[in-house]
């Protein structure tokens, strides 16, 4: 009797202990302001889901990309939720590396996700990653300098107007550069900007048969315009400038215009860190009248690797972090201006958000102006606005980025850079089996 009681007692205790044991999921992410804020607010999730414990791994963007790729390709099983972008999602989904997100819950309202963003994260109509925050690119400009130059920025400027305004605003004696643009080499740095810009000049990376197009006049026009503009009106050492370097310049009042990610708007308009917070205006990315603007589309998104053993818990977390409820939670704790932008249509219809974020309408218009499935004037065989969604692009994009960065630095001519880019792209496409 005693033995049976003892056994039953032990079994019950073990069962209780097992039930009380929380399932832990590991989330890999980057150190962006919105991601850091999410980590601070997870108590809301764990309160509602006491059986799920969250472990965070925050990594530098390139290391994160390399680590999650290694892990997912080798089925390492280190992560249950991954922060990835619109470049990875279509490639990885086609490889069956990601789980489709079809159990996000009845109140998730997936139809509320901005169509352009949902399109970039879906394959064959199925959503493979939920957007945490989305961005396009647009023009941020100094209203006071524009007035001083006697010009008025249109809502949808042309490249010629940007050049004219940059020339007039440049005042090197007072440390003001007419325009600040990315020059640092990298597929996600200068090539994100230049690829989007080239779309508005009618250029494309490849034709329908994957033949590289750097030997075409559209690319020559793009790169020559960019190099000339930066030489005349850009900051010194621009070939080393990426997002953060240009952000620092703009916040210190050293740029008349800056064409970059829409998320930068919340930084440049923050009076705590920006000396020009009350002088910033916004406009759509420029065009050349060819039907495409020079803006990109990107969404840092949460995806679940196919190898996870905790898919249900992971999907619960993804649903929470990308829900309308989360947006309201951020608004209640830190104000509407700090809600992750660019993912849900309802956010842009919210008058409180519109009031708190003066750049809201322009952000939404910019996102809507980008179409990752038809990114260029001429037809292309690929998806992606500022990238080509093929595995070879990371390496090739960085190689071409180095060549174009060298042209900006004056180490090579535009023609040489384009010729070398054409050779590198032809070699990569032939090796990858795209060109037979």
């Amino acid at each position, binding site marked *: 009797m005693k033995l049976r009681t003892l056994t039953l007692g032990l079994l019950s205790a073990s069962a209780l202990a097992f039930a009380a044991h929380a399932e832990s999921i*590991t989330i*890999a992410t*980057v*150190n*962006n*302001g919105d991601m*850091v804020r999410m*980590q601070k607010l997870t108590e809301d999730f764990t309160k509602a889901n006491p059986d799920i414990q969250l*472990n*965070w*791994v*925050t*990594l*530098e*963007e390139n*290391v994160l990309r*390399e*680590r999650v790729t*290694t892990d997912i390709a*080798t*089925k*390492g*099983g*280190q*992560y249950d939720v991954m922060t990835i972008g619109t470049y990875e999602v279509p490639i990885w989904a086609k490889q069956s590396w990601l789980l489709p997100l079809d159990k996000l819950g009845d109140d998730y309202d997936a139809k509320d996700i901005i169509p352009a963003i949902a399109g970039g994260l879906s394959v064959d109509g199925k959503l493979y990653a939920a957007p945490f925050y989305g961005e396009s690119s647009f023009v941020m400009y100094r209203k006071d300098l524009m007035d001083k130059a006697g010009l008025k920025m249109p809502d949808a400027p042309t490249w010629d107007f940007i050049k004219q305004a940059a020339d007039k605003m440049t005042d090197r004696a007072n440390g003001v550069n007419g325009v600040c643009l990315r020059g640092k080499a990298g597929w*996600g740095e200068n090539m994100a900007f230049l690829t989007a810009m080239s779309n508005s000049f009618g250029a494309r990376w490849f034709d329908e048969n994957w033949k590289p197009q750097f030997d075409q006049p559209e690319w020559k026009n793009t790169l020559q315009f960019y190099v000339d503009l930066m030489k005349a009106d850009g900051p010194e050492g621009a070939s080393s400038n990426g*997002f*953060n370097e240009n*952000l*620092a310049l703009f*916040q*210190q009042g050293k740029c008349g215009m800056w064409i970059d*990610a829409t*998320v*930068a708007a919340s*930084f440049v308009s923050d009076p*705590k*860190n920006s000396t020009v917070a009350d002088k910033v205006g916004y406009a759509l990315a420029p065009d050349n009248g060819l039907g495409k603007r020079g803006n990109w589309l990107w969404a840092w998104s949460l995806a679940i690797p196919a190898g996870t053993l905790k898919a249900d818990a992971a999907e619960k977390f993804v649903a929470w972090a990308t829900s309308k409820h989360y947006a309201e939670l951020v608004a209640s704790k830190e104000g509407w201006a700090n809600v992750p932008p660019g993912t849900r249509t309802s956010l842009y219809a919210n008058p409180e958000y519109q009031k708190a974020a003066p750049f809201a309408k322009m952000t939404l218009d910019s996102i809507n102006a980008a179409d990752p499935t038809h990114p260029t004037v001429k037809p292309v065989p690929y998806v992606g606005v500022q990238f080509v969604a093929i595995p070879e692009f990371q390496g090739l994009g960085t190689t071409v980025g180095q060549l174009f960065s060298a042209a900006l630095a004056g180490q090579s001519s535009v023609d040489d850079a384009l010729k070398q880019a054409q050779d590198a792209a032809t070699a990569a496409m032939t090796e990858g089996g795209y060109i037979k």
Partner: protein
Amino acid sequence: MARSVTTRHKTIATVAAWIVALLIFFPILYTIITSFKSEQEAIQGFSIIPSGTFESYSEVQAQSGYFKFFFNSVLLSVGSTILALLVAIPAAWSMAFSPTKRTKDILMWMLSTKMMPAVAVLFPIYLIFRDTGLLDSRIGLMIMLMLINLPIVVWMLYTYFREIPGEILEAARMDGASLWNEIVYVLTPMAVPGIASTMLLNIILAWNEAFWTIRLTTTEAAPLTAFISSFSSPQGLFWAKLSAASTLAIAPILIMGWFSQKQLVRGLTFGAVK
């Protein structure tokens, strides 16, 4: 006259040494200075006078607990050093006192493994760790750090051991000492300065190792290199916080290096003027 020339040379050499030392140390000093600035101050150009705020330190601590990473760094650097010495002392002994015609080749081959880029073996190592369940484990990383630093440890100990006269070991053998007793009671005490400096250098190398420690860990075994990496941001200027994280990560090893500098220099220059 000769004395004044010598004094002038000494002064010039001292000033030059101070300038070089300051140039080398300045990036570290500026990181420490920046860690006491606000984010706005940090981006406002060069300035060596901070406002003295501790804001970044408290935010860094709140965002990712420092002590867990610190504990892992201590465990991994000390653990891997002990493992390396256990393997390297007998290896260096055999190469120094019982060399064969292939000893030099083996030493060169060991050193040549340091010339291979780590990324070249990332996938095989990752797969081995995955299949043996060593991903994100302290013991797995300890073995990895031991292996990557082993060639340097063996080489350093080999150099020190070669300075010890073989006759002393022969005398111990004639007195009936076993191989174990010879290594533990005769060789090791004589080579203490060399072993100590090797140990210190290995701890520093293991502490600073960033490639494998970031790629083979997630949450449990992540050391301070992963802690710093988590503060690098692609979108957003968090230079003060990044500087605070870096200062916290390098402070322990900097303090250890300061207190043991005599030992380190003596060990590193051992046999250099022969």
